[in-house]
């Protein structure tokens, strides 16, 4: 018994030690590797909710997004901050308790039920205006929340309208009511597992009167249906206890989605847009008892499942707003509609949110598929809010330019390119649109820097010339013997990793071109299940036909060529097939049965495939089954060319998986992007942790790339634009051995000398989104097992002679620390006592190439490492010029220090004799003393500024004259010019002259003055 017990204990100990080592690694280990948010704000992204604080006159607003969380402005949009970064990023509805506007509710899960809509994970509350959030209410399984309404007379009463799950039957839908400010909810209107609550309005004068619409709807991967017996319009006059269906004057059932609006100033007046065989707008003036048909103009009837926003002016019951495909407004209660004028510029189509300032009803905020707009004239013209980086990318790619360019396609926002770094930072204006429609794959041609392949939805593949942005349509076409081609909404366009001349795309067949899409070869049979039941898209939509290629199915969804062999090609379909060819497409082998054997459901979308960079038999893949109501994270690895698979498991995982990548250098470093987060593994997939490195914890991560030159992790999010984690090599290099150390100093190797990658173009950017650039200087990196709470951390740099060159304060965080040294020495001591500061004392010459020593001092511990500073070979700045620059800079450095000594000497004499001279009784002696002091001051005033009191008046003295040349030389990546050298000679003479003059004055006067002072003292 005892032996067994002992053994068990030992085993547990061993296991726990092992898991300890693994769990030591998490996001905070790499906390300093923070993503920079490339944005952009120029096309922004889909906005699903906007609410403002009524008492704040339109300054404080909360903006909910389709995949980028909640953003808050307190200045009417001049700046925004994300305030929901630790939670689900898909936002359905926001409500502010206007009686206590610090109370905010957020219902997660957008309810604009397009094919790409994300899902929520419940209901959240903040009681401090968005700083802190708690999940409450038990609504975690509703997946989609359309509206949150607070009883205006009683803040404890909160209603949540939940359409509920889109892809499956569920009881978690309907209208919910809380009477304890959201803590608990009771379902007060429930129809069926197929129909939820799509809209709710409350009578502000009589808050027990509620109007609600229920909606029956469903998506499958290959169809959409809006409408059914569960759809209806309802009224309650007892706070939701009982409900009456409203039908009088409304279209006959079945109906689809109904949008409701009440006139706050005359609440018996409501309007409704009812999706039906004849969709239209209906009005009632008697609290819903009877309805009358009004407009059925384009904007009223378009896509009711997607456009469900309808608002009546808070003061004017006749003023009706219908943000939908475009922005329409009515001044006659919905009888006729006008469209926003184009004056002021284009307003992005597809609108989902509108907030009207109740105190100034001219002021409107509109949420579209392309961001937020502000109107100050009741919607006639609009200004774009350019600082919300919430773009919804599907894919991202990069080229090999330096700095590299980033390419990507977005939901409803086309395809774009931008530099990853550029002078001044990457701003909205640096992004260039290269193709229209919805954008997806954008793939630069590695063999031709002017060419990129881009597309719009449904396989519209194009070859785009980046110089002109002119495009050539290259979509493969059906030929005799082919079935009609089926193109996915998000059709893959892929360049070969082994042979970059190979361009692939796929319908149900795989196509390859070796000449930039001019000629294509079909290199596969139908690789899908070709299930005819899943090909009836013409009947899709339900009551309103909706066939935009979004439901196209049984198509190829992902393609990958092995980096090791161009004949090894992998193809994944949206209906569960993962096919491999090892002979360039001549024959194909379907591995789906083997995958199903791991427990991954059949029929899942094969969302990504990553053939290994190290072994042809190794392949990774992700699988997405959310369209069958299953949100599990599925990822797997095969080590035998797809014959058998092993699924990755982790408690950390959340969200259905979009992408897996393997690091091209360290085969154990893997990343998975899911609908709810980015995950990393350092041990080949055994353990995973969530990456939180300035990345929203539940970011919708659609695509990932690692740049082979810069080692940057490039992240395409579906709601937060592009994120870049610059240089992840620290993640590659962190071995178990290092993890067990208290402190580890990573090998620095060589550091290229640089004054920074870019110059300074003057003013900082005004407005819009600006991403910082990649760091210009290589940092030192060290690992701390724990945060250091006692003792200082310093990095000291010594030259070969052992002289201290610079000391830089270190950071103390747990995990990887990065500290950047300016590559400069300590600045000179410059002359003090002036009436203005001088930059000369803040700037030091850049060091010369050579061998240096780094001492990392952590408390009493010290780690030492040698490293090299090297002159960049490619630079136009030669080594000889650098040496000359350094020599000149050092001459000026010494001049500064000499001058400082001279001025300090003068000041000291002034200080020494001022009082004694003032106290002299002998007027003749005093006069002499004053002569001495005045002469000293005259000299001092030639050396440093003594008069200036304004920063706008230049008072240049010898110190400033030295600095002018010194700064120029220190900052130029160039050798000193002839006149700079000439000027140094001149400055030297002036310093020598000043020294001589000071000495001469002291010789002339000091003994005499001292004597008279001494004499009188006696």
């Amino acid at each position: 018994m005892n032996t067994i017990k002992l053994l068990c204990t030992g085993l547990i100990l061993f296991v726990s030690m092992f898991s300890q080592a693994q769990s030591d690694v998490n996001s905070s280990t790499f906390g300093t590797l923070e993503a920079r948010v490339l944005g952009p704000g120029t096309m922004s992204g889909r906005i699903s909710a906007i609410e403002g604080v009524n008492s704040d006159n339109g300054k404080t607003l909360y903006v909910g997004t389709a995949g980028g969380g909640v953003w808050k402005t307190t200045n009417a949009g001049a700046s925004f901050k994300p305030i929901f970064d630790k939670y689900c990023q898909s936002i359905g509805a926001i409500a502010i308790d206007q009686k206590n506007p610090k109370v905010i509710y957020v219902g997660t899960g957008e309810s604009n039920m397009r094919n790409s809509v994300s899902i929520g994970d419940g209901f959240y509350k903040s009681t401090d205006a968005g700083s802190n959030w708690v999940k409450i209410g038990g609504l975690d399984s509703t997946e989609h929340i359309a509206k949150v309404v607070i009883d205006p007379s009683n803040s404890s009463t909160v209603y949540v309208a939940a359409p509920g799950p889109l892809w499956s039957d569920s009881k978690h839908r309907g209208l919910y009511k809380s009477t304890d400010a959201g803590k608990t909810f009771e379902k007060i209107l429930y129809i069926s597992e197929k129909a939820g609550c799509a809209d709710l309005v409350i009578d502000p004068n009589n808050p027990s009167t509620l109007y609600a619409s229920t909606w029956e709807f469903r998506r499958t991967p290959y169809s959409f249906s809006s409408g059914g017996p569960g759809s209806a319009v309802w009224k309650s006059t007892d706070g939701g206890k009982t409900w009456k269906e409203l039908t009088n004057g409304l279209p006959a059932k079945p109906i689809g989605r109904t949008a409701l609006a009440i006139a706050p100033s005359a609440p018996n007046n409501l309007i409704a847009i009812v999706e039906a065989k004849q969709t239209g707008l209906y009005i009632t003036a008697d609290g819903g008892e009877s309805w009358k048909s009004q407009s059925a103009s384009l904007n009223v009837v378009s896509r009711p499942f997607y456009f469900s926003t309808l608002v009546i002016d808070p003061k004017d019951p006749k003023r009706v707003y219908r943000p939908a495909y475009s922005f329409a407004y009515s001044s006659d209660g919905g009888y006729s509609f006008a469209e926003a004028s184009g004056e002021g510029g284009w307003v992005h189509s597809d609108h989902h949110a509108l907030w009207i300032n109740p105190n100034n009803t001219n002021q409107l905020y509109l949420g579209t598929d392309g961001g937020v707009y502000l109107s100050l004239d009741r919607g006639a013209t609009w200004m774009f809010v350019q600082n919300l980086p919430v773009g919804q990318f599907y894919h991202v790619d990069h080229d090999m330019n330096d700095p590299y360019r980033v390419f990507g396609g977005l939901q409803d926002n086309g395809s774009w390119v931008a530099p990853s770094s550029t002078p001044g930072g990457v701003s909205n204006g640096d992004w260039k649109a290269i193709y229209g429609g919805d954008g997806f794959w954008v793939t630069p041609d590695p063999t031709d820097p002017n060419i990129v392949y881009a597309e719009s939805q449904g396989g519209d593949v194009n070859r785009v010339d980046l110089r002109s942005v002119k495009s050539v349509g290259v979509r493969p076409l059906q030929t005799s013997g082919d079935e009609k081609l089926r193109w996915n909404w998000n059709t893959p366009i892929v360049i070969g990793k082994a042979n970059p001349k190979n361009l692939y795309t796929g319908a149900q067949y795989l196509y390859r071109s070796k000449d930039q899409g001019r000629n294509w070869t079909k290199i596969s049979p139908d690789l899908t299940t070709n299930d005819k039941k899943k090909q009836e898209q013409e009947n899709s939509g339900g009551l309103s036909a909706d066939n935009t290629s979004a439901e196209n199915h049984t198509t190829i969804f992902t393609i990958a060529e092995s980096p090791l062999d161009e004949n090894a090609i992998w193809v994944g379909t949206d209906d569960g097939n993962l096919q491999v060819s090892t002979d360039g497409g001549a024959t194909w082998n379907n591995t789906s049965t083997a995958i199903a054997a791991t427990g991954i459901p059949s029929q899942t979308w094969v969302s990504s495939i990553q053939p290994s960079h190290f072994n042809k038999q190794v392949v990774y893949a992700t699988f997405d089954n959310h369209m069958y109501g299953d949100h599990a994270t599925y990822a797997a690895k095969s080590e035998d060319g797809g014959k058998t698979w092993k699924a990755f498991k982790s408690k950390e995982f959340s969200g259905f998986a979009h992408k897996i990548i393997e690091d091209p250098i360290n085969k154990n470093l893997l990343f998975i992007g899911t609908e709810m987060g980015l995950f990393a593994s350092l041990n080949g997939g055994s353990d995973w942790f969530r990456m939180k490195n300035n990345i929203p914890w539940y970011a919708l991560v659609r695509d990932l790339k690692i740049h082979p030159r810069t080692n940057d992790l490039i992240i395409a999010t579906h709601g937060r634009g592009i994120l870049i984690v610059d240089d992840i090599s620290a993640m590659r290099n962190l071995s178990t051995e290092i993890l067990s150390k208290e402190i580890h100093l990573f090998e620095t190797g060589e550091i290229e000398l640089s004054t920074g990658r870019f110059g300074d173009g003057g003013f900082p950017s005004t407005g819009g989104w600006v991403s910082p650039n990649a760091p210009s200087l290589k940092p030192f990196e060290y690992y701390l097992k724990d945060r250091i709470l006692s003792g200082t951390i310093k990095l000291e740099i010594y030259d070969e002679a052992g002289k201290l060159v610079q000391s830089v304060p270190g950071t103390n965080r747990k995990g990887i620390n990065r500290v950047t040294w300016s590559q400069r020495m300590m600045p000179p001591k410059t002359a003090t006592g002036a009436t203005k500061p001088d930059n000369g004392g803040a700037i030091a010459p850049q060091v010369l190439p050579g061998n240096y020593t780094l001492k990392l001092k952590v408390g009493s511990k010290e780690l030492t490492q040698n490293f090299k500073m090297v002159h960049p070979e490619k630079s136009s700045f030669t080594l000889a010029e650098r040496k000359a620059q350094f020599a000149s800079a050092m001459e000026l450095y010494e001049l500064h220090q000499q001058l400082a000594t001279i001025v300090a000497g003068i000041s000291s004499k002034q200080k020494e004799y001022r009082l004694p001279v003032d106290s002299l009784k002998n007027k003749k002696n005093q006069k002499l003393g004053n002569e001495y002091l005045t002469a000293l001051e005259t000299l001092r005033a030639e050396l440093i500024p003594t008069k200036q009191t304004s920063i706008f008046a230049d008072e240049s003295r010898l110190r400033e004259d030295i600095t002018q040349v010194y700064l120029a030389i220190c900052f130029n990546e160039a050798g000193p010019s002839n006149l700079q050298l000439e000027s140094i000679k001149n400055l030297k003479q002036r310093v020598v002259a000043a020294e001589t003059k000071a000495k001469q004055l002291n010789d002339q006067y000091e003994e005499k003055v001292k004597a008279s002072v001494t004499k009188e003292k006696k």
Partner: protein
Amino acid sequence: MKKLKFFSLLLAASMLTLASWAQSADEIIAKHIEAIGGADNWKKVNSIRQEATLSVQGMDIPVIVTLVHNKGSKQEFTVMGMTGYTIITNEGGWSFNPMMGQSKPEPMTSDDLKYGKDQLDAQGEFLNYKEKGHSVESLGKEDIDGTECFKIKLTRKSGTESVFFIDPKTYYPIRISSKVVANGQEVESIVNLSNYQKLPEGIVVPFTMENSQMPAPITMTKIVINAPIDESIFKVGQ
């Protein structure tokens, strides 16, 4: 202008650290006070004089912060031989920044003064916080750079708020996050604290602080408790 802002933030940060002692949910606060030297020792603190250095790539900016409990504070900094200061007393606040060409001290805005006055409490804000009219709230835990910290919100009598992140091992705060309102706009100011050391008086204080607005951490070189302080230094123009 940028520079001025930077210095005032720096100084506010340096004030905040020494002055803001205490924690939340009473148990955590009690442990925290014990950890930093105990209530008895802190109650004896009447004045604090800190000498510190901000080192920016080799250029040292000496900083001296003098605080007399509930009476006044003066923060001086010297850049290239020019000395500026900020003075806060119960009567008002002034700042003098000759680097910006100022020839005399200028009054602080009422917003800045409000935050400044909060920090005249040399004995730590958590000590007897109820009597001082402050309130605290536990906001659970939050991961700060890999340390799962207690999260305590302090709402001061003046209405200003700070969140303290307290290391559960040592009960030292490792971060203080404050919402500073200026012109109706909230700005979050984050100060990270480290290098805790025990003073002869038995109290434990951080010797290193960093603020996202500062170019480098500030490190204390000397802290003297209850040194005699000539309160005339709080007179403007001295």
